[in-house]
């Protein structure tokens, strides 16, 4: 059933054995031990599993491995490093813009992609970009101002 796949994850080339229909999310979490993308729905509806695939934000829970072959994937772990957080990560901490934090990796991945195309977004642009991300703790307002501040800082 399984098959070999080659892709770039956070800048490194990796080879994995996986079922072609297995979601990219499972491979990231279980085979590559990258737990940053979280499982929230498996339906492409909540954003908890967001990653960048060739620069585009996708839900990794419904991206099958056959579609990820040969692509370059960036997860939340690949955005910043210890001591050198991505500006969005830093701003989320500065604003304490999380409660349980379960939604926050997906939010960070989406917001980081926004800053690539719109380096200093206003609140409306942030809201538009994050409208596919759900947060049940109700931290949206803090997240919006954190992302605006991250943009102003870069």
């Amino acid at each position: 059933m399984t098959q070999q796949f080659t892709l770039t994850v956070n800048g490194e080339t990796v080879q994995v054995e996986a079922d072609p229909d297995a979601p990219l999310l499972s491979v990231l979490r279980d085979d590559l031990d990258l737990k940053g993308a979280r499982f929230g729905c498996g339906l492409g509806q909540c954003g908890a599993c967001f990653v960048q695939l060739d620069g585009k934000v996708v839900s990794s829970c419904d991206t099958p491995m056959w579609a990820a072959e040969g692509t370059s994937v960036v997860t939340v772990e690949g955005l910043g490093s210890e001591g050198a957080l991505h500006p969005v990560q830093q701003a989320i901490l500065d604003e304490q813009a999380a409660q349980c934090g379960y939604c926050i990796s997906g939010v960070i991945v989406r917001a980081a992609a926004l800053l690539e195309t719109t380096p200093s977004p206003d609140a409306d642009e942030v809201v538009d970009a994050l409208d596919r991300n759900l947060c049940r703790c109700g931290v949206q307002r803090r997240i919006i101002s954190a992302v605006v501040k991250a943009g102003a800082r870069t």
Partner: protein
Amino acid sequence: MTATDRSTATPSLPRDLVANPTLSRWVTVDDDGTIGVRVGKVELGQGILTALAQIAADALDVPLSQVRMLRAHTTDGPDEGMTSGSMSIVDAGPSVRLACRNVRALFIGEAARGWDVEADQVTVEGGSIRTADANRTTTYGELARRVSLDVPVSAEVPAKIPGGPRLVGTSVARLDLPDKVAGRPAYIGDLSLPGQLVGRVVRPPSVGARLVAVDETATAQLSVQVVRDGSFLGVVGADEAEVERAVRTLRRAADWDEADHLPDEDDLPGYLRAGPHETIPVVAEDRPQGATRRLRASFSRPYLAHASMAPSCGVARWETDGSLAVWSHSQGIHRLRDAIAQVLDLDVSSVVVEHAENAGCYGHNGADDAAFDAVLLARAVPGRPVAVQWSRADELTWAPFGSAMAATVEADVDDTGQVHSWTYDVWSQGHTSRPGSAGAALLLAGAQLSTPLTIPAAVDPPSSKGGGTTRNSVPIYQVGPRRITGHRLLETPIRSSALRSLGSFFNVFCIESFMDELAAEVGQDPLEYRLGRLGDERGRAVLERAATASGWGDSTPEDVGRGIGFARYKDSEAYCAVIAEVEAGQEIRLRRLTIAADVGQVVNPDGTCNQLEGGATQAASWTLKERVRFDRRRVTSDDWESYPILRFSEVPEIGVHLVDRPDLPSVGAGEAAQGPTAGAIGNAVAAAVGVRVRDLPLTTEAVVAAIEAD
């Protein structure tokens, strides 16, 4: 004298220390100076462990970085009951403070002995234990091996921490967020224990469905193990994709016996009022004769889902000696342990439950049930841990719901607005069916076993704990003689349990809506009308603060309405006032919430604001959008499209204002905003469109329908 000092002046132990008096259950000190603090309360995203670390660090006189909060554990840590009802800071705060002050005193005593000086010559500052002249110094780490903490806590510790609280009262950043923001393993779903297997449950298609037959050979080609016990059906295997395939195969191969027994979702008030009920008298005062004018209104809300962002997850491993290790994001690991032992007839001491975080749950979701699923599946593979991950549909359809509710309120009022009597009846299912409630184990899969557990209807917490159906059913205002009664439904196929604030959300919505109706009846401003019948000084201060901050009374555009909601949570905890601003254009749009609150002494101001903002945002989502959907057989709201919650484009702007009371005990903030937010939005909608909608949720369609019917 500070609040910290006063708490130790009373020589009686906080409740949780009475139950768990051994110091080492609460505090451990390592050679490297790390001070581990283990509480029975768990992190749910509310920041409780950070707040407790602040209290611990102050009581020990160490920097925050020296304190490490350890995971709750049924064997190693204290039993503090549930993490619920905004009680964590109330229960655990004083216990942690006193336990840590005991530890500090023991270390001072040991240092004094070693230096041959009096204990009162020794102080602690910034983690350094030293003589008053600073000639001799040592540390917690250096003395760790010489001080035994396997001793009972004492209510009397030498008083006075120089300088009083330092971290308490400041906005310390959450200790757990850096890992979460970096995407590091932080949640139960991130556990990978040696040899861990994947488990999945094939849940029945509807509540009460019975598994007639299943062709287990259907999965013969797959390397998985099928587990069946009565109507409980599950799969265990090493490969997730393979296990998922087996689940799909079994779903096709299973034959279920189902029945239509759910209520009519379009007449929930009728269903709730039909009974049978337990009657819960709250207040029964005599109504005077000869009233001038009587007003009456009825309200309702639908069933609500907890809708955690993470579907529930549980991990279990049966050891070869028959003992059992469980990892769970339960809000009450000790009660979960007891329930598992009860159902499987095990000795409680052979079951160990360790807490592992998951996403916010806002009450009793599927956490305990998923843990029990894991226990049942892991029994088939002794020695191997099995992790059961629920699906999104499982979480939205099988986790308990917050009960639907209905109420009727009636008041006699005169021309001045004075209320001469107030009658309130509220109908609801019970608000708790946590493991152990009503003496039953109450684990979902238990009802499906070949020897099934009976799952009784949900009960309510006693009134001493704020009640459930009747929580906040007594108005804080002067309303004359009152007759207030709850009616708890005793038979229902729908499982209900604790959802953030229990009945308070709905009862406050009803009371606050009706207060506005009374004010309108006599042509008074809603703020003035409330203040005119509110004697409580703390309450008045909060209400006035919210009004000033929101610009109450300033003119607004024609299609914008403002509304007030106010309550004191559980009649004895946080005061919270909310002013909502709603715009009624093409659709109903919540523009702004202004919140004022008094939570006593504020341990962490920013954390408190965060809780109030989050609570209000969630309550806005319940009020404006949410409703569990079902037909007569199945729950049909099983994903984020059929169970929509507030999105980024719909969240209001929020301003929070705290009224600090440094010399009053701290109370929780996490549930205080729920009811006031609903009341404020309801009143703002009525102000904006001129018609009142009394049945939640206040969707644009519902408001349009009400305008057309008017």
